[in-house]
């Protein structure tokens, strides 16, 4: 019973929202404003059925996930090493920091026109937008991770005979990893959010963002809601995976 209780508490508000939604939709009787759950659920229950003559909900989700993963991984592969170097070397950080601080507040969507011009419509420009969104959280949290390393650990390593490179490999990287992981979790969330905006770029013909835009143009709001639910579920599941990773890999954090 004890383990179930938090789950029940978490479900309470969504259930309430669903009920209020249904009552309102029956009252308003306008599927453009508030589609009833009897129209939304069939879309969710038959995820393999082609929508609007194109890909199904399931296929669109996979395509979106694939794009997010590519853009996200690209960002990680560049941001983590760069962050490690900038966290470790003050000089490197002095070079890199100003440009980072200028680019960071720019919302990924604002990059869209340039993305299309530089990277070609379709895959290239999409990955770029997702990359831009994921890069900064990972980069910044990597630097923070390096900064959070206790000097004592480095001193211990030194007294035990570690060279600078060995210190980097055996102390800096493991020590920074919890913070990097948090950055990854945040960045994935941002990447997943950038996706919808990114899939409105010309040249996309599939994906959850595209599906939502298409449904909007056809006035099929129930598909929009179904798409939003799928986006939300994938977001929750991915966040959960990151948090499990956090407890299993970094259970030591904060207790030493």
């Amino acid at each position: 019973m004890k383990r179930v209780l938090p789950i029940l508490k978490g479900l309470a508000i969504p259930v309430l929202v669903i009920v209020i939604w249904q009552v309102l939709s029956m009252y308003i009787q306008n599927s453009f404003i508030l589609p009833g759950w009897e129209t939304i659920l069939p879309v969710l229950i038959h995820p393999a059925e082609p929508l609007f003559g194109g890909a199904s909900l399931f296929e669109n989700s996979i395509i979106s996930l694939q794009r997010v993963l590519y853009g996200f991984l690209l960002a990680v592969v560049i941001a983590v090493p760069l962050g490690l170097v900038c966290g470790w070397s003050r000089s490197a950080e002095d070079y890199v920091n100003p440009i980072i601080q200028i680019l960071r507040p720019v919302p990924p969507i604002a990059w869209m026109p340039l993305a299309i011009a530089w990277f070609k419509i379709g895959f290239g420009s999409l990955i770029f937008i997702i990359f831009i969104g994921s890069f900064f959280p990972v980069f910044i949290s990597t630097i923070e991770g390096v900064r959070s390393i206790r000097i004592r650990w480095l001193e211990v390593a030194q007294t035990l005979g570690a060279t600078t490179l060995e210190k980097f490999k055996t102390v800096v990287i493991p020590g920074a990893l919890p913070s990097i992981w948090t950055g990854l979790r945040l960045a994935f969330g941002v990447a997943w959010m950038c996706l919808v905006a990114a899939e409105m770029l010309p040249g996309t013909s599939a994906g959850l963002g595209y599906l939502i835009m298409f449904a909007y143009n056809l006035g099929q709001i129930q598909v929009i809601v179904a798409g939003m639910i799928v986006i939300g579920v994938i977001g929750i599941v991915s966040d959960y995976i990151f948090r499990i990773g956090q407890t299993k890999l970094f259970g030591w954090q904060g207790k030493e």
Partner: protein
Amino acid sequence: MVLGMRIGYSPLICSLILFSLILGGVMFTGNDVSDIPDHSEVQFVYATSGIMPQLLNTSQVDAFFVWESVVSTAEMGGIGRVIARDADIPPDRKWENTACNVLVMRNSIITEYPEIASLLSAITIAGIKRIHENPDEAINITAGWVYGSQPIRSAGLLLNPLALEKNAFPHINFTYGALLPDLGYMQKALPDYEKIPPSPSSWENVTVLNRALELLNGSEPVLSNIPLRVRIGYLPSSDLYAPLYVSIMESEEICDRYGFCLVPVSHMSGRPTECELRVNNKTVTQIQLLPGQVGGGVMTGLGQNAIDVAYIGSVPSLMQMSMGNPASIIHSINAGGSGLVVDDSAPCTDWDSFIEWVKIRSSSARPLILAVPQSSIQEEMMREAFEYEGIQISLYGLPKLGVL
């Protein structure tokens, strides 16, 4: 490995497999070697009208099919050539006189305020007539409304909006008598396809049009029920709604001639956003002009009671209405006005040589890429034309999904 020990090997292996499935799996089910196309293929890209010249200029697409005056922008900006217009698109000059844009009203507006509906329709028709009477003034007004006063940039050249419109207008047929397209290919994408009645005239409301013609002939408006305001949605980036622009900017002439008109009240960046409907010099109701980005979006707004009247493309309106959007088409606004644009170096000069080019490109496994606005009459035209020519359409950038 430490990682394995911490999490446990099975979840780690499972997630790695899932991971690589997602990353790689979908990609690899793409082009099989055995899949030699026996039909020629062309690829569509959905894009917004404004970006199409840039896409052509950077060779990201090989051609685009869109409305004026984007076509003229590309032509006069040296980006490409127009090789075909509505009448050239098969089958059988079908599109020459087919409604491209229409006046749409929500059914509740028509039933509750029939005279207001008819007045708005009449004013639109008056605008159409004015365009035919004084095309130069119409061009002036449209250039100012769509582009403002500054010259616009197209691929490095500065273009004068007036010159643009002078180039575009002759290709647009402003008429309220054009026939509605039947949707054919677009409809196949819709749910409950078989249940849709075939004839587009099911969504036409001739009563309003008839009353509008009476009003234009001198019949006295009978104002019983008056709304507080009427919200009109349209796409300000398009020339094709010139009747709206002209009727508002020439409100004086129209009021003199007919006794009713739309008088602009407030201006924002040269473009009125609020008007008044005046009948016999008395203000009857407020009109709000709400700009939109895409036709489908404006129709959705209509369904959401955010907009009451729309000047919109025929295809997006018919598609939504056939799926239950409670609105009706009053009459057309224009026919024609689309153009197929290719790069200057393209090996074609007309539709037939264009199709030849498509086939050559397809056989060398480099299908031609054509940009069209999504869910527009232009897309419908292209789909029907390619089916007529026996060419398959696929969507650019869509990985061919296999068993997954």
